[in-house]
Each structure stands twice: as C-alpha cells, then as structure tokens.
C-alpha cells in the first residue's frame, strides 16, 4: 500500500516536471541578450563648418555573445507625448550624414565593452539652430529558424546646438490634475517651446495626503524640442484604490522656476465606485422603505384613533 503511494508520488512528480519543462507554451527563454550604450545623451555645441569628436561604449551585460551594427539616424518626435521618430524628414537636413564612426559593426562577448569613436562634422553653411540625432548600437541576430527574431537597438541621443544665433523661448502651457480619477492618479504638465533650440525642464511633482504627508515624490528632467508642446504625463503607479490627495510641484526651465498650484484629487477605483453606488442605493432604498413604513404606521394609528 505504502509502496503503491510512493510510486504514485514519483509518477506525479515526473509528470509535473515533464509538464513544466516540455509543455510550457512558447514562453521565450529568460533574458540573456543585454545591450547597453553609454552615455545615453550628449549635448553638443558646435559651429557650422566645424568638427568634434567623441566616443560611446557598447557593453554586453548579458550571458551570450552577439554581433552589432552602429549607425546614426535623425531624431524627431510626433505628438505631445513625444513618440520618437527616427526617419529623415523630407526637405529637412539629414543630420545622420554628419556622423562618422570608427567601427560600423562588431561583436561583443559577455562582459566586454567596445568603444566606438565618432566624428561629428557640421557642413559649412548649416543654419544656426537645434539639430537632433541618435547614434544607435543594434544587435544583429541571425534570423531565427522558427518564429520571431528579436533585435534590440539602444540609442545615444545627440542634442546639438549649431551656431550662436538661437532663440530660447518657452512657457508652461497647462498644469492639470482632474479632481475625480481612477487609479493610477495622474497629473499632466504641458510645456511649450516656441524658440529655435531645445531646452531642458526640471520638475518636481508631489502627491501628499490631506495632512501634508508626502505619499509620492518625483523629480525629473525632460528636454523640450523647438516648436513643440510636450505633455509630461505623471502617473503615480502605486496610488491606492481610494483616497483624497493633494498634488503640487514646481517646474524650472530657461532660468524660471514656476510653482504648480495645489490641486485636490479624489481617487476611486471601479470596484470602490461600484461598492459606493451599492451602499448609496441601499441607503436610499432603506430611507424610502422607512419613510413609507412610518407613513403607513401613521395612517394605521390615525385610523385606530378614528375608530
């Protein structure tokens, strides 16, 4: 009997292991290919007709060797949420042609760092202003025999000021946080750049309870490209399903520090709203039932008195 149970347990164990390792449906393997680029951003000031040099590193922090390519693309954004766009805009200067790299391809073993030198040459006669590009390191995986091959590319962003004749101008367009929200509590800051060159905006965003205790604090920095409005969406991902909060902060750009006035936000999740609705409905129904009952009792008492 005991022996039978033993075999039963062994069978279940073996079956479980089989199911775990062989029938597991199409999950990709644990992350093994890691492409790192450093630095992530470079701010360059250069005059037309001049060149500058620099370097960045491609680092393999994964556990497998991979080959990579190096190349540059223009950098543009679309929409106020700044969806990146790496295509050359017809009629605009293709800044990717300004870059020359010491290597255009290579391979890195786990733990290896490959230094890539670049020369950035701005053609003479280029109009003063802001120009934007990305230098990419991209894995170059051989095409998979089955399924979807995945490549990664990681970019070093170049924010370039060409010449001195640039206009730096911008304003805080809106600071918005709706009173009634579902989690996550989200506020938005919109900053407009009406100049001819990018600028950086530093912001601090704070969520506190009614007693002033800080519940969430976010410090950040964003660049704002010229002739665009950037919407900074600031979600508090850990916000609870119910609560009344104060949101405030400040934003600093072009030498001006602007306060973001305090706003109140009531957070209610869908479930809390349903429960609240049910409770309110029950109160109303109870009140109506009680009112009708007391009216009926009054009428009965009145009849009794008359009889």
């Amino acid at each position, binding site marked *: 009997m005991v022996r039978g149970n033993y075999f039963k347990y062994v069978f279940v164990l073996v079956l479980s292991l089989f199911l775990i390792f062989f029938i*597991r*449906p*199409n*999950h*990709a*393997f*644990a*992350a*093994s*290919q*890691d*492409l*790192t*680029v*450093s*630095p*992530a*951003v470079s701010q360059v000031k250069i005059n037309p007709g001049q060149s500058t040099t620099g370097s960045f590193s491609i*680092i393999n*922090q*994964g556990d*497998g060797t991979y080959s990579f390519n190096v190349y540059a693309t223009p*950098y543009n954004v679309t929409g106020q*949420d*700044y*969806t*990146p*766009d*790496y*295509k050359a805009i017809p009629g605009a200067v293709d800044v990717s042609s300004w870059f020359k790299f010491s290597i255009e391809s290579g391979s890195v073993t786990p733990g290896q760092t490959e230094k890539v030198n670049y020369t950035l040459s701005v053609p003479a006669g280029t109009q003063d202003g802001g120009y934007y590009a*990305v230098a*990419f390191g*991209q894995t170059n*995986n051989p*095409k*998979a*025999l*089955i*399924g*979807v*091959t*995945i*490549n*990664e*590319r*990681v*970019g070093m*962003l170049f924010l370039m000021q060409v010449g001195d004749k640039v206009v730096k101008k911008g304003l805080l367009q809106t600071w918005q946080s709706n009173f009634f929200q579902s989690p996550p509590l989200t506020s938005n800051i919109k900053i407009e750049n009406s100049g001819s060159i990018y600028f950086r905006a530093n912001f601090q965003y704070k969520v506190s309870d009614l007693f002033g205790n800080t519940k969430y604090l*976010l*410090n*950040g*920095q*964003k*660049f704002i490209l010229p002739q665009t409005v950037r919407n*900074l*969406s*600031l979600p508090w991902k850990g916000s609870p399903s119910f609560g009344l909060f104060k949101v405030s902060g400040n934003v600093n750009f072009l030498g001006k520090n602007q306060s973001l006035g305090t706003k109140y936000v009531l957070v209610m999740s869908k479930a809390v709203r349903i429960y609240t609705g049910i409770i309110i409905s029950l109160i109303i129904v109870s009140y109506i039932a009680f009112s009708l009952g007391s009216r009926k009792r009054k009428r009965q008492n009145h009849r009794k008195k008359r009889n």
Partner: protein
Amino acid sequence: MKINNYIRLKSPITISLILGLVFGATSIVSAATANTTINSTISSVISVATTGTVTLNVLPTGGGAQTIGSDTVTVNTNDSAGYTLTLASSSANTYLASGANQIPASSGSQATPVVQAANTWGYCVSGIGGFGATCPSVGVSNQAISGTNKFAGMPATGSPNTIATTATTAVNATTTVWYAVAANTSQAGSVTPYTGTITYTATAN
C-alpha cells in the same frame, strides 16, 4: 639618588613620549590640513535586455488555431529623463514569411486592437493604447482562437509604436510583449518555418 634613578630609568620613556607627541601631533596637524578633492562622473547608461527569439508553432485546424508566446523586455537607465521603448518590424514588411508564403499582420492597431483573425499574427502589451486588459496572461499552444484576447499588427520600421515610457530613471523596468500566430488549414504549411524580425528601440527621453 632616588631622583637620579628616576631620571635614568624614565628617560627613555620620557624621550619616547616627547618624540611621539611631537611627531604624532605633527601628523595629526597634517591630516587636519590636507585636503583631498574627489571628483566622480557617473556616466549615463541605457540598456535593453530580451531573449532574442520567440517561437510560435501552430498546428492549424479548420476553424483556426492560435499559439501565443511572450517576450519580456527589460530596460535600465540612470538618465533622469527616463526612457521610451518602441516596437516595430525591422523592415518595411510586416508579415511573417516562409519563402513566397506569408502570414500578414493583424488588421488591428495599438489604438484599436482586434480579436485575431485566422492566418494573421500580432502583438499585445497590457495597459498600452487600446489593449487595456485584453492581453493574454499565459502562453498557449494550438488553442481555438480567443474571442477575448486582442492583438495589433506589427508596424513597419518607419512607424514604431511606443510600448513603454517612464518619467524618470528606471531599474529593471520590464514590459511583457505577447505575440500570437493564428492559422487555419487554408494557410500554406511550411517546410521552412514562417519567420519575421522585429526591433525594440530604447532611447532616453
């Protein structure tokens, strides 16, 4: 006599003490006045880690069978502006190909994903765009096409879709991308499997 002995016996100690005090004090004074400036530049970095391949084998049925798999993309950056992660096909083609045979991308978009039609492939990222909570939670093989899971077609290389973004630094920020292939018996079987290549792109904000 006692005094002389005292001086004789204690002299070496006294001298040692005096020397110790003089040099010790000197070294203390030196330590107090020497300044060391420490400069350290922390380089900004941005990284992406993935698995490299997602396998989606399908055993087609008359009504259509669906296989769903996932890939986890991990992004790290110490740039205070955060990062944006986009997804697109590596070329202008958005289909999976096996020689001349193709499995086209789903007709849905990230803003308006759709229940997968037979003989299409697509992706889903929970909470992004119109996906909401319509992404699968587990991978499956050869199931009947789900009526609840919704997928978008892979955009071409020039029009990537943003699948994750942060307002500030990120440490091991993961994004799970679900991929699905659905096929019925009208889809040409393949000796050479259907394949496609997609690219995740991460840049600082």
